[in-house]
């Protein structure tokens, strides 16, 4: 197992000894964690282990009390806010699918496109042929081509999850944080999502938080298990799921 200091030189995301407390409750406790470029990583852990808090810190929603968070070895994420971090190339999918329900699928993707996001740029924005092609491409990746003019509100739960992933793709991030993407999905949808994520991970790094062990097995990637705000174990799914501490804290006997 490589240590944090060795991987530091080539990391995409680097968390060092990060702690944050809410009213005395230590949500994160000296968490250190590294994601390499092009890596697909799964994170598991019991409720309250700090998975969502970790994502909040990476995306700038929460500020850590102590510790460092570096993006591409150089950018200190703790000094940036959500919009900065998104523009740097970190996309985030929420636990509950969050799309713009009163917009069409197409408009959702158009908004997410990685274009200038200033007030006047958006006021006078015009859909270029390139942008049109890009949206079409994403639509086919997330299997929503035939529903492009549908209001997002009318999509099924699984389709909303996909649309949200599609919006993240449109953002062209270097790192994608995905929080419980298959919660509430049918088995068929779950399998489909695993394929989708693996496909996405070909061109960028993805961090997936999930409870569904079957899904993680499907992904077949390096797994990190968090407990009480710090890393309990890290390695392949078999390595982690055979770790006695993981069994005790999370999987159960």
């Amino acid at each position, binding site marked *: 197992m490589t240590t944090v200091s060795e991987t530091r030189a080539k990391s995409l995301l680097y968390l060092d000894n990060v702690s944050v407390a*809410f*009213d005395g*409750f230590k*949500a994160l406790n000296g968490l250190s964690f590294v994601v390499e470029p092009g890596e697909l990583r799964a994170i598991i852990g019991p409720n309250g282990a700090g998975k*969502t*808090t970790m994502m909040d810190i990476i995306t700038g*929603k929460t500020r850590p009390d102590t510790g460092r968070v570096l993006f591409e070895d150089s950018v200190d994420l703790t000094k940036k806010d959500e919009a900065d971090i998104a523009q740097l190339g970190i996309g985030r999918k929420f636990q509950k699918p969050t799309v713009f329900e009163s917009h069409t699928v197409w408009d959702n993707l158009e908004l997410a496109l990685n274009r200038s996001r200033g007030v006047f740029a958006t006021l006078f924005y015009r859909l270029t042929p390139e942008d049109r092609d890009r949206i079409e491409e994403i639509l086919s990746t997330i299997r929503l081509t035939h529903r492009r003019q549908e209001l997002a509100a009318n999509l099924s739960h699984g389709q909303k999850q996909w649309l949200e992933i599609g919006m993240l793709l449109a953002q062209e991030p270097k790192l994608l944080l995905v929080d419980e993407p298959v919660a509430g999905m049918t088995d068929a949808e779950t399998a489909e999502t695993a394929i989708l994520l693996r496909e996405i991970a070909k061109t960028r790094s993805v961090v997936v938080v999930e409870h569904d062990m079957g899904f993680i097995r499907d992904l077949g990637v390096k797994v990190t298990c968090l407990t009480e705000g710090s890393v309990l174990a890290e390695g392949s799914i078999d390595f982690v799921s055979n770790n006695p501490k993981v069994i005790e804290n999370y999987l159960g006997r």
Partner: protein
Amino acid sequence: MLIRIFSLIFLVLASAVPPLAQGTDPKPLIDALAKANFKQAEELIAEVAATGDPRVVAPLEAFAEGDLYARKADGVVFIGRSAGSQIALVDPLTGAEAGEVAKSAATKIKVNNNLRRAIRASLGGLTLMSPDRGARLQAATAILGAPSAENLQLLEAALAKETDAEVKTRMEEARAVSLLSSDRSLEEKRAAIETLAAKGGRKAISVLRSAQSSVDEGLKDDLDKAITAIEGELALWDMAQNVWYGLSLGSVLLLAAIGLAITFGVMGVINMAHGEMVMLGAYSTFVVQDVIRSSAPQLFDWSLAIALPVAFLVTAAVGLAIERGVIRFLYGRPLETLLATWGVSLILQQAIRSIFGPTNQEVGNPSWMSGSFPLGGMMVTWNRMWIILFSLSIFFALLVLMKKSFFGLQMRAVTQNRRMASSMGIRTPWVDAFTFALGSGIAGIAGVALSQIDNVSPNLGQGYIIDSFMVVVFGGVGNLWGTLVGALSLGVLNKFLEPWAGAVLGKIFVLVLIILFIQKRPRGLFALKGRAVEA
């Protein structure tokens, strides 16, 4: 000079041994003034005073003013008031009219400064020695207000006899004041300055200031020291008075906000009709007092105690109706709730206007709510006092209800996790309804108290709604202690801004400060922090 001292001593002796002269009819003595020369008159004055008869004050005062006349026909002495060419005569002791006579038919009894002094001294003695405690206190206060060295012996004699603590203190102060303008020794004057410094107050300062010009060189330092000491103390009392006013305003804010702390703070319901609940409480008080006035006036002092449960029930019922009729359909849509309850507030205002008319209604203060008492260097009015106590007791009662009772437990359970609470068998709709009714009822109770210090009109509530929201938001939503601290600190802040910014500008200042504060700490002073708080 010698004569004066003699006469004073005589007078003091005379008044110190009242049984000798007391009971003597002063009438012949007064009549004797008609033929007396100055010297005799002085003795007569002493004798008149020595009778101890309180009725002699009027003729003595009239004598000093030169209003004492002897009727030429029979030599009887009267108090006369010039009325054109006539003189209206009044019996010197009884004050009964004795007809008018021509100016030529009466002789004015002559008076000189020496006599005037004697009269003043004997008058002071009369009242300082009066068996009536109130009269003695008044006399001492009068001397305190217009000190003169001539009263010194009198005061000292009176002091020796005085037993009442309050009167004695007042006399000592009066003596100290008089002493400063006398020719007594430096030591005594120094002691007098200390007495005055210990008394404090604006009057003491002005006395000391006026003494500054006349006093011996050696005492100047003592004077200055005493003045600064009193000024420092005064500043402290001013501060205390300001804090008191602030607490009093804060307690009013607390009263108005405390019901909102439940409906908004705990339930998250924006009730814009909250002010109208306060208003309904005030009108309940008015109706209760109206009934009492017409049917059982002897109960008037109890009217507020009776109005409390009435106001609580009335407003709680109205609150229940609002919750069941409007708000329950709007849970989770705070902005819509805001609009709908604003509509409710308009209807309630207009309803009250239609029933009672648009003008202010007279709500009386029971006797125990009126008046004031001094506390050190400040005045404390009873109604403010009671309102502070009342709002604090409501606050703590509510705190206990929330933390200790089963209903409070259910209420907190529902607000923290509605689904979980409902799956544990709590009837969440009823908890909602009763929580809202409770908040409204408390607003009604607040209305009873506010009816004592504010105009009871249909617009009463409007004046409180913004302030109440500010208090709750400033203190931190969902935290009763925050509401307490928020209300009291805003009240005090307001009163400290007032002296240099004026009442309106002060209020604007506070509003702006709160607006800025909320932007700095959007969740208030005592914010709940953590993951549960969704940004």
